[in-house]
């Protein structure tokens, strides 16, 4: 595959007029830079996904298993029986088109099959043809079609051009959620071993080693030790976090991405500093070292299998409750799925902040609290000493990650935290934030490098709103509570609005946090001179 070299202006020639031919008569054209490579056989085998094999997307022959049509149709029947959402959403769409221009991929590509309604019709048409009387008799007139290899390829191509962000679902008069339909489509294609590598690899790694990056226990520790060294450089305070420690009050779980890549690492440093300052009795785990869940982007069963580690580890270590770091889909999973999958967590206690005594009533069953809820409570109770001016050089905007916004409803907590640690805060236009927030364009396991055009196109609506506040207010930093955002929006901003960096909310907190016994800070969390302190750094 040739390297992706297109310039922003090349991508902006977007044609929103659909082609002359009817969509059913327009065969899928699988384009380079718009899809992810397939998963390796060994990764599928590791977790027991069926039909692992080596195949190439560009090849005519995808080496589909025998009777694959039957597998899909039986799978579809089973899903219709298991999920009311799927069953209802297959029947009630009136094709009003309210969702059409709400999808970031449609906005960025103009491809009509990226209108959520049409992406759903890809599946619905086969549903009608096989499961409804009208579709069986009237065929195309009833909007039905047969399942063919080309239809299957089209499914695969477009179900991996959906980031399960749920924005369409906000605008749909019946709440039809394309995320739910994409999840079903991915369940089905996974029956045939059509997993993408960017999910398959992390899933296998997470299953065996505890995290998506495949960091082994000693590496998890050495990553965090390295952060502690940097923190000592910045603050003069030595932090010694514990790992897999039995009897700790709190288990802390965060996405492994933040242990490895900038700027997520700065957020991880922020956690360490905050917890040290509070004297929190907490532990990291190397076994449950992943808050995110790429299984969620393949099948429900796989997601449950990966998620099981969190409660299992909390039980083994005997902690009272669990605190979760900043991550988007992780919080959709923890908020809406974990308790159902792997609960009841009756071995844990209802979460109470040991610092403020606040009971987190809203987490009394799942027993897991979001770091922004935790921090907002600390600030409200005056438990943190904060020096906002350390963030004065930043003009910050906040990106609501899709899942905390639309699958959890956590909108105010991070904003409250940011406003208490930063002087300069500016919201993006209202149609692009909160429940109407735009996806980074690379969520749901498609943040690979080979599909960069897709990612940049999908990231355009978000980046364009960032550019708006950059141009208007001079915003130079985008804050978010998502590890995937920190990686993907760094890339999208670099492409569309390179003047704006990306930060986690807890990095901003740590930068402002005045710690007991710290030396005068001259460096920020990124080890860059604080404004006004340039040159004052001691040369060692």
């Amino acid at each position: 595959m040739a390297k992706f070299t297109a310039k922003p202006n090349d991508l902006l020639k977007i044609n929103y007029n659909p082609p002359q031919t009817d969509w059913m008569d327009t065969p899928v054209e699988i384009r380079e830079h718009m899809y992810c490579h397939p998963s390796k056989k060994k990764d599928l085998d590791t977790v027991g996904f069926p039909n692992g094999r080596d195949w190439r997307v560009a090849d005519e022959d995808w080496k589909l298993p025998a009777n694959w049509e039957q597998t899909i149709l039986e799978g579809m029947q089973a899903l219709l029986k298991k999920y009311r959402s799927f069953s209802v959403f297959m029947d009630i769409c009136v094709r009003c088109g309210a969702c059409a221009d709400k999808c970031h991929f449609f906005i960025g590509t103009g491809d009509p099959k990226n209108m959520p309604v049409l992406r759903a019709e890809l599946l619905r048409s086969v549903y009608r043809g096989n499961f409804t009387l009208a579709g069986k008799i009237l065929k195309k007139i009833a909007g039905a079609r047969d399942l063919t290899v080309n239809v299957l390829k089209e499914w695969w191509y477009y179900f991996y051009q959906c980031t399960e962000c749920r924005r369409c679902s906000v605008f749909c008069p019946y709440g039809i959620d394309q995320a739910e339909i994409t999840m079903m489509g991915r369940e089905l294609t996974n029956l045939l071993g059509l997993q993408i590598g960017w999910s398959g690899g992390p899933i296998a790694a997470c299953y065996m080693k505890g995290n998506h990056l495949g960091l082994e226990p000693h590496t998890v520790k050495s990553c965090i030790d390295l952060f502690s060294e940097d923190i000592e450089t910045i603050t003069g305070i030595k932090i010694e976090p514990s790992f897999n420690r039995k009897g700790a009050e709190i288990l802390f779980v965060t996405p492994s991405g933040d242990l490895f890549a900038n700027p997520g690492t700065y957020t991880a440093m922020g956690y360490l500093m905050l917890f040290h300052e509070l004297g929190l009795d907490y532990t990291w785990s190397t076994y449950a070292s992943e808050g995110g869940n790429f299984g969620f982007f393949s099948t429900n069963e796989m997601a449950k299998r990966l998620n099981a580690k969190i409660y299992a580890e909390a039980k083994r270590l005997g902690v009272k409750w669990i605190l979760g770091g900043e991550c988007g889909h992780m919080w959709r999973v923890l908020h809406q799925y974990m308790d159902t999958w792997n609960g009841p967590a009756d071995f844990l206690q209802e979460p109470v902040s040991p610092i403020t005594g606040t009971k987190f009533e809203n987490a009394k069953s799942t027993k897991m609290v979001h770091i922004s809820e935790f921090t907002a409570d600390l600030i409200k109770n005056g438990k943190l000493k904060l020096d906002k001016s350390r963030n004065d050089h930043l003009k910050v905007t906040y990106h609501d990650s899709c899942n905390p916004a639309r699958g959890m409803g956590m909108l105010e907590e991070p904003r409250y935290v940011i406003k208490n640690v930063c002087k300069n805060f500016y919201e993006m236009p209202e149609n692009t934030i909160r429940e109407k927030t735009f996806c980074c364009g690379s969520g749901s396991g498609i943040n690979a490098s080979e599909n960069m055009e897709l990612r940049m196109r999908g990231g355009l609506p978000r980046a364009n709103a960032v550019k708006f506040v950059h141009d208007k207010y001079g915003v130079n930093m985008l804050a978010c509570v998502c590890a995937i955002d920190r990686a993907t929006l760094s890339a999208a901003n670099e492409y569309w609005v390179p003047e704006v960096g990306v930060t986690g909310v807890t990095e901003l907190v740590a930068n402002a946090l005045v710690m007991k016994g710290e030396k005068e800070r001259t460096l920020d969390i990124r080890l860059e001179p604080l404004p006004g302190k340039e040159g004052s750094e001691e040369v060692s």
Partner: protein
Amino acid sequence: MKTLFPLFAVITLIVLVVAGVQYANMQFLFGVIIPYLAVATFVAGLIYRVMKWASSPVPFRIPTTCGQELSLPWIKQDKLESPSGTLGVIGRMALEVLLFRSLFRNIKLDMREGPRIAYGSDKWLWLSGLAFHWSFLIILIRHFRLFAIQLPYPIHVIESLDSFLQIGVPMLYITDVVILAAVTYLFIRRITNPLVRYISLPADYFPLFLILAVAGSGVLMRYFTKVDVVGVKQLTMGLISFRPVVPQGIGIIFYIHLFLISVLFAYFPFSKLVHMAGVFLSPTRNMANNNRMVRHVNPWDYPVHVHTYEEYENDFREKMKSVGIPVEKE
């Protein structure tokens, strides 16, 4: 093709009823048997649909949250857009069903040079959708007068309100005008908006044409081509009391109207029109956002293979010990 087929289907229906009543004298078939069958199909079909949906469980609690969750006591929860209890869910559903809350949010993409992506307000779909549905409901309720010996008071009130403009004789019902205008707008939107046209199926045009024909024939009957109202009432009272009679000389336009309505009723459960019932079963809207407070149980949950801590420690014990991470077995 996508518009012509449903158009011809509706025309064929009209030809069918005209031929049947005018030339074959099948008044009893079109005036009694088909309406009975249609209503029976509607009721049975709708029950079947709802039962079928309801037979699939809701394994996960997946509301789409459109507002602030219930969180810390000093953070204001959005009780309608992110309800945490039954009352809030009822409120959210009521807003959705009665006022089309989500459609009210609609915005329109506007890609400008620069690029600058803007989003303009776009309430026309909401307005026409709401106008159409409410008019349809009011007209339907008005028709109950045909099935009552004495005019029930609520219907009298609705009729008075609907005709408060007091134009003409018989007095003009506002809903008659609104429904024709709204459906016409929805049709024009469907064919002129390139994206909506692209996603449209014959099954989207057919109900529009059918409803237009139903409303059109009703308007013709009331304001222009008069029918024998006493005969109509005799027929409808016969139907409702299960002692059907077919008075002579009612007028063909009535039979057209009745037959098209019958088709609409019978077609309803097997088409997208079931969104009327389906919206109540939509898990993204009818569930409370109390996920971390109240555990949701998945009825088909089953045990899965996991990689246990024991297996994990067996894989990495020496590496863990070498950096001082505690292990279960030394």
